[in-house]
């Protein structure tokens, strides 16, 4: 039987592999976008927290803050100190 110039299995596998890589990269890019936006939000929350903290300190008021308002920052207020426990970004500080 004479072999024709048809599409061969190897070419098909190559095309499918490229498609799979492209899809994976797209998925990764989406994930990275979420991570980046969360970091930006953390930075916003952090500067809001610092600004609020300075105002409360200037007024000599006890540090009463609702930690959920500064999400995604993970905060704890212990004896008039704010502890920023952990987050993905580099900001990590304890205010006194």
């Amino acid at each position, binding site marked *: 039987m004479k072999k024709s110039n048809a599409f061969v299995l190897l070419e098909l596998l190559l095309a499918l592999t490229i498609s799979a890589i492209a899809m994976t990269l*797209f998925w990764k890019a989406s994930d990275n976008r979420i991570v980046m936006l969360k970091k930006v939000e953390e930075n916003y929350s952090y500067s809001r927290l610092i600004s609020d903290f300075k105002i409360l300190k200037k007024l000599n008021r006890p540090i009463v803050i609702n930690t959920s308002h500064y999400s995604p920052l993970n905060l704890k207020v212990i004896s008039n100190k704010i502890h920023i426990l952990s987050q993905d970004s580099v900001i990590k500080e304890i205010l006194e």
Partner: protein
Amino acid sequence: MIDVKDIPAFTLIELLVSIALSALLIILLNNQIMNSISSDKIIKTKVEYRLEIENILSHLEADILSASHLPNGQKSFKSNNLNDQLNIAIKRIGISSINQELLGAEIIWNFSTSGISRSIRSKDGNFARTLSNRNIKAHIDKIGVNIIKIIIKSDNFTKSKLIEL
């Protein structure tokens, strides 16, 4: 007459293998595709919206801080809170974009269940801009003589900011 045997084409086996492999790949990739779509939805509905509110809080703070002072030393700031609807009016001096003259302007922020808008009224004209069209609830708590706390609530989160008048 054309000899059919000479025409290059897929063989039946190749075609069947191609279809089978494509079907297998689609099944395997389906999960990834669905994850990508749902991730994109999360970004749009949650993360980007949260950032939008952060931006609005910063913008509002900048407006309040730039408000002109009244003769009694207080900032020209008025707020009106009614059933989760919040209106803020700020007066300030600016420069006209038309003739570069000194100009008074009133900036009005409106927070309601239909969204957030900011409008400017001045001699140059009235300009309104919708900053968000999502359902939110907002109110102001007075913390001290010159300190206010603006609280914005949505279905998924609450954000607040202290502002010194």
